[in-house]
Each structure stands twice: as C-alpha cells, then as structure tokens.
C-alpha cells in the first residue's frame, strides 16, 4: 500500500479522537478504576476496559479510565490504547500505596462531580474495598465478581453474571434504578483487549488533597502460622475414595508425581485424610494441573470442586461411576491392581 495514503488515513483517524477528548469532559460514561501494581496497569484493569468498551459502543457512551497512585501519569497512555476515550489521573505521593480513605476521597469527589453511569473495578483487594463503600455512599448497586456482562439497552442497565457456589451456575443480576451501577470484574473473565498504539490522548489531572488513612501498616506478621490450606493451590493432587483400597499406594503415587494427597468424604470416613483435605464444594475446591481420582465415585459436588483441573484421571471399578463423566482419562479398573503397576511404570 502507498505509504502516503496510510499517513492520510492515520491523520483522518486522529482528528475525531481529539474531538472525542474534548467532549469527554462531560459527565456520564462508563468508568474503569484501574489498579496499578509494580508500576504497570494490572491485566484485570485492561480486561475491564475491554468489557467497558464493548458496553459503551452499544450504549453510545464514553469510556473513562481513572488512575490513582504515584507516578501514574505515563500509564494513562496504556488506558487510551486499551480503549479509553478519556483518562483521569490523580498522581500524588499520598496515593503511592493503596489506602482506603485517601483513594475513597478522590473517587468520591470525582463521582459526585461527574455522575458516571457505570463504574467498574477489578475484583482485587483494592476494588473489593473501594466499590462497596462508594456504592453505599452514592446509593448505587454493586454486582461483585462479574464474569459476563450484557446490556439492557432500554433502561441502560448492565446485566452482570456472577458465579454461585464457586461456579456451579451463574446468577445474572442488574441494577435498573439506582445510579451509578458498580461492578467488580473477575480477573481472567474477559479477554485482554488489543493495545492500539495509534490511540493516544491527553489525561485530565485531578488535584489531590492528602487524607490520613485509618488503617496503619505495622509490617510483616510475626509468629504467625498461616492456616493450612495449600491444597487449593496444589499443582498435582492424588485423591483417594472409598474404592481406593490401599491408601499407602495413593501416598506413594502422590510422592512419585510430586503432588499432594487429598480425598473425598469416603476417605475422611476411612480415617485416611484430615477434614481440610476433603475435595468438595463444601470443603476445598481445587484447580491443579493434574488431578488423579483413585477409587472416587464422584458425586456432583466432588465433580464441581475439581472442575477447574486441567487434566483429570479417574480410576474406579464401576463403569457407571459419575466421576467418569468429568474425567479426561477414565480407567475402569480396580485401583489395587493398577496402582502398583503404575508406580512401576512411572519408575
């Protein structure tokens, strides 16, 4: 393609962008309050911007990014690239670390002055702390951990879906009356938008009056044993059920795979595992790379608890065991026969 033609096209596209920036000073719009971590905009903030862009396009609204922190002015361009029409930046040393009261004060003044329609946060510690307080103060509704967002165009209402019982199903809720509508976006639920390097703009700077935080940081916790719940973060889990036969073999398999031992309620009844090792929606919900279910029949809630596992192996003598419906690799066999051979094969 002719390069001059491309330049011409680019110049044409930039002009309306500037015009939008002028209009963007008005109220309303969809806001995304971006988290900043380690000097960069967090992925969930970009994902929220992507979701906001989609909603705004069908609503005919503008998307504004809000950045709080110290030395965050340069990050505004990232928000423009991800789809923001305008960016408000509060760049102040008093905002260097997240603290509720200073952040709340800035956002409250901003929301009161500009009256946004929708305000989105990432479902992070920061977003989860700010969103409910702002919602209560403004009288707005809040939907947390949103994984799907659709639009009710007639009432300009966002319909957010959030997981029930850790994702057994999703409830869709909307806030038809009160404004603004607050949402916290579950990390990873929406795709990260393409960062268009040709999108750019001039951020609006906000004056910050320092506010004293109410919660003081005393430093690392001393003499504290964290509660033992690492099962949820384990990469490999070998779980036993009533039909496992010999629990010693299960332990050996876990050791051979470098994983952790767990079980279902049957294994707990047999006295093999502790209550906190029960894999179940009511117990621990796990998301390992590999989950080996040895002799677990697998009811609905066991199935739901291992759903996030990337690769599920089931060994059970009953061909009709429900565990086979969720497993990726199904062995209709007696674990007592297969496990010794498996340990041998694994070396």
């Amino acid at each position, binding site marked *: 393609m002719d390069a001059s033609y491309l330049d011409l096209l680019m110049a044409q596209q930039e002009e309306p962008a500037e015009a939008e920036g002028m209009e963007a000073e008005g109220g309303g719009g969809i806001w995304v309050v971006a988290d900043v971590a380690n000097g960069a905009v967090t992925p969930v903030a970009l994902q929220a911007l992507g979701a906001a862009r989609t909603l705004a396009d069908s609503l005919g609204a503008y998307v504004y990014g809000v950045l709080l922190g110290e030395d965050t002015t340069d990050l505004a361009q990232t928000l423009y690239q991800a789809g923001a029409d305008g960016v408000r930046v509060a760049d102040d040393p008093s905002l260097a670390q997240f603290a*509720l*009261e200073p952040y709340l004060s800035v956002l409250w003044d901003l929301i009161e002055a500009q009256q946004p329609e929708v305000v989105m946060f990432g479902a992070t510690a920061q977003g989860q702390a700010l*969103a*409910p307080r702002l*919602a*209560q103060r403004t*009288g707005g*509704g*809040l939907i947390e*951990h949103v994984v799907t967002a659709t639009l*009710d165009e007639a009432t300009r209402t966002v*319909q957010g879906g*959030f997981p*029930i*019982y850790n994702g057994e*199903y*999703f*409830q*869709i*809720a*909307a*806030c038809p*009356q*009160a404004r603004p509508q607050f949402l916290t976006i579950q990390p990873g639920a929406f795709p990260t938008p393409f960062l268009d390097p040709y999108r750019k703009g001039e951020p609006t700077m906000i004056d910050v009056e320092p506010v004293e935080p*109410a*919660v*003081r*940081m*005393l*430093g*690392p*916790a*001393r003499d504290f044993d*964290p*509660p033992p*719940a690492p099962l949820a973060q384990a*990469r490999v889990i070998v779980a036993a059920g009533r039909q496992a036969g010999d629990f010693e073999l299960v332990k050996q398999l876990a050791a051979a*795979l470098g*994983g952790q031992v767990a079980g279902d309620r049957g294994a707990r009844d047999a006295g093999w595992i502790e209550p906190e090792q029960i894999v179940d*929606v009511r117990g621990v919900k796990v998301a390992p*790379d590999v989950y080996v279910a040895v002799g677990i029949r697998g009811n*609905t809630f066991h199935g*739901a608890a291992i*759903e996030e596992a*990337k*690769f599920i192996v*089931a*060994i059970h003598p009953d061909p009709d065991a429900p565990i*086979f*419906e*969720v*497993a*990726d*690799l*199904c062995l209709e066999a*007696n674990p007592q026969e*297969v496990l010794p*051979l*498996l340990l041998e*094969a694994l070396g």
Partner: protein
Amino acid sequence: MRILVIMGRVLDPGGIAVNRRRGRIFVNREEYVMQPADRCALEAALRIKDGLQPRGAEVVALPRSVLPDDDVLRLAVATGADRAIHLTSEGTVEADDAGIAQVLAAAAERLGGADLVLTGATTLDTGQAQLGPRLAEALGWPQILSALHVEASDGHVAVILKQGKQYVTVEADLPAVVTVLPDALKPRYPDGVRLINVYKRIGELAAAVEQWDVADLVDVEALTPLLEKRGQDFPPERERGVRVTGAPREMAQALADALRQWAPS
C-alpha cells in the same frame, strides 16, 4: 467491649443438585447451615472475648438478612455469643446488602454502640463480599477486609492478613469493621447444654435471643432492593473423556504416559 458478629445462613450445597443440560437447580433437601466465613467471624469474636478475661467482652450476634427463623442466631448463642438480635418484620422485607447495612447500623446504635463489628469476608453461595464494607460506610468506621487473625484490646484492633505472598499485620483504632476469611480459624462447636437451653429458653439463656422489628429501626419502605435478579446462566456440560480398556498393565502404561506429559516433574 461490645463485639457485634453479623451472621448468615446458606443452603447446604449437599442438598442441591445442578443440572447443566436442563439448566435447572434441584433443591433436594432444604437445609441451611451457617455461612462458613461468618462462623469464623464468630470464632474470632469469641477468641477476643476469651483473651480479655476476666473483664471479658459482650458478643452480640445479628443476622445478615431478615430471616424467617432464628436458628443461626440460636446456634451462635449456643457457641458462646452472649446475646442475639433476631430482626423480624410483619411484611416481607426484601432488602439487599445496601438496605441491611442501614438496618444493622441502626441496630448498633440502639444497642448503645459497639467497639468492633466482625463478619464473614464472603458468602459461600453468592460469593458477594459487600456487606462488611457497606456496613463500615453506613457506620462511618474504618474497615479491614479478609482477616486471618484478629486481636482487639485497648482501643485498637490488630489484624493479620495476606498481602501478595506475605502476611502482614495492620492496625486500626476502634470502632472498626473487620471481615474474616472462611478458612482463617478453626471454629469451635456449639455447647450441647447451651444449645438445649437456648431453644427451650432455660436459665440465663431464656432471653438471649431478642426480637427486634425492622420497622422500629429504619423506614421499611426505603429498603427496596437495588439489584434485580435476571435469570441464571449455566456453564456447558463437560465433555466425556477417553476410556482406557485392556489388561491392567496396559492401562497402567497408558496412564503413566499421560501423567508424564501432564505432570513433568
């Protein structure tokens, strides 16, 4: 010191089944249990009370919503709370967390104030975590969310929480609102004798569970829920996996190959 613990109930997940293909939820057994996070909040309150002996502290349990029965509150008293307030209403009150936060703030005031409010950081069913911070806003108090360990004395509360990969201690002046994570503490069991006494209204527990009408606390008309339910969405059914058949040795070999690929360690 007066500690308020906000407690809720949840439909026992063991009693419900979700059929994804038909997009329906079957409630086979309508049985409610205490929200696990709220149970930890109660445990945290009782540990603070134990630590402050002999002066002690008054632990008051309040519900997370307007409940048709007070089983959760009786259970809280049986576990060690000194008293409980059951919020009742003549008509149905369909308040969500925004309204309940106002009701609870009014209840705290009628109780003569409180030093600390403890509640669960999240609910088991909906996973919503907004009641604690909303209540903090309604009361105008500082908040500390997702606590693993709570200590309170001499006008301030010290909380251990996880920040990134490390555990840190933070501190705030009382009064404050603290939410407790579901797995933070190992909750104690209700005391059998107290459980019987609180249900049969015997001895010192005869009047432990009080009934307060919501209408006396706030304007019920103003409690319309902000959120509206718009149906449910079901994740797709998981596809069936590969079945391995044959002699045990062949099966073991196939499994070993697959495991080597997925768990290279």
